């Protein structure tokens, strides 16, 4: 195998992307869990530990750029490295949603507003399951597996719509909680966007294997308020 150096470095980066993905999965699950426990200390930890994810993203980006410069890849290797650059960026942005949820949690503080914890957890679990499988498909370069995931985004979208309507209704009947209701909507928004970004990872798996850049679902508004 004449490209042993390139192949072994690609494997290393793939493993690190997998690890970064696990950190992001844990961050969103923890952030959602603290909505239930209302452990604000833990929320602060999640908020602060986002910097670890940011640093890892830059380290990976740097490793990818070095490989591009030194190994001068073509064809599938080139597509893989270009896709990796995008995926590490997606993962970093997804972690920002976890950070955003932790920040909102701290802001809600001791308010006694009813947080739809169960639905938030369902959204987070579904999103994490999608992310986990999308990263497996990415690393195994399995386009069929990747192509099947984006449609599951509907489950997250339905939960979002449910929370949205319930929260608006709550705010109408309890106008003094308007501000907190708005916070609840942002949490839902962050989880919904988190799942949307899984689709982008799936698109890159298709790109690596076929060379085609294609949109797998038409996400609505890209307005990004994750940092709240």
């Amino acid at each position, binding site marked *: 195998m*004449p*490209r042993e150096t390139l192949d072994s470095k690609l494997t290393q980066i793939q493993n690190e992307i997998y690890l970064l993905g696990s950190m992001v999965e844990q961050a969103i699950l923890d952030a959602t869990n603290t909505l239930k426990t209302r452990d604000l200390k833990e929320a602060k930890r999640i908020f602060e530990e986002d910097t670890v994810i940011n640093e890892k993203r830059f380290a990976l980006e740097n490793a990818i750029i070095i490989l591009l410069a030194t190994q001068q*890849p*073509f*064809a*599938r*290797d080139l*597509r893989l490295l270009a896709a990796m650059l995008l995926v590490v960026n997606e993962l970093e942005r997804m972690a920002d949603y976890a950070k955003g949820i932790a920040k909102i949690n701290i802001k809600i503080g001791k308010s006694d507003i009813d947080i739809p914890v169960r639905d938030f957890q369902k959204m987070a679990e579904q999103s994490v399951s999608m992310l986990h499988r999308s990263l497996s498909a990415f690393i195994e370069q399995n386009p069929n597996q990747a192509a099947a995931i984006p449609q599951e985004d509907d489950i997250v979208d339905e939960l979002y719509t449910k929370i949205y309507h319930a929260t608006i209704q709550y705010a109408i009947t309890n106008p003094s909680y308007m501000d907190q209701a708005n916070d609840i909507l942002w949490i839902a928004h962050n989880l919904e966007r988190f799942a949307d970004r899984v689709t982008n990872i799936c698109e890159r798996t298709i790109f690596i294997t076929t*060379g085609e850049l294609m949109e797998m679902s038409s996400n609505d508004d890209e307005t990004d308020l994750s940092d709240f």
Partner: protein
Amino acid sequence: MRSLQSNGKPKITAKNFNLFYGDFQALKEINVDIPEHSITSIIGPSGCGKSTFLRSINRMNELIPCVKTTGKIFLDANDIFTQDVVELRKQVGMVFQRPNPFPKSIFDNVAYGPRAHGLKNKAVLEEIVEKSLTDAALWDEVKDNLHKSGLALSGGQQQRLCIARALAVEPQVILMDEPASALDPIATLKIEELIQNLKKEYTIVIVTHNMQQAARASDHTMVFNMNPDRSGYIIEYGKTSQIFTNPHEKITEDYISGRFG
């Protein structure tokens, strides 16, 4: 083989072209259109017939006694094998791997071709020499030393002198066989930039082992491969941007990503 989707008018066309060295078939069924005013690179593993095909385009292979060919190659609509070979080589110039200036002055190197074709008028010759050296991006470096020996120039300058010498007879096509493989990286980039400018007036076909060079410098890339009987054929031909990012053939993919064999 997938054929090239190009809007350019074909300058060179090969139809069912085969070439034999004695009993050995070196090229098998080459069918290809090379668009005019573009740079086409030919890549592929050693011994697969890239240079043989390049040399066929100006019938250089005929200098080898045992060579025979079947099929046709056209320059525009003209069958090159029915053309006068001297006239053909005036239209199809060639630049080789190692710079090979004549042991003459810079001026005489460039004026050699026009003189051989009977041009004697000194003023016209001077004009041709200046234009050819300018087009070869060498004029500014040598204009005050035209009487100096071509062999006194650096390797990169010598190669540009050879390009100027090829341009002096106003060819339509320039064939280049690994034109930068003996040059340092800066001289190599100069040649690559130079050919980008030349394609406005000429059609350029370049054989290279340097895939980065093919990717940087050419519009289209033709990938040669070898059959089990060692005859060469074209496995894939497409826009350079496609070949190097998303080749259609696995053999191309393996070759350009360095996983061949």
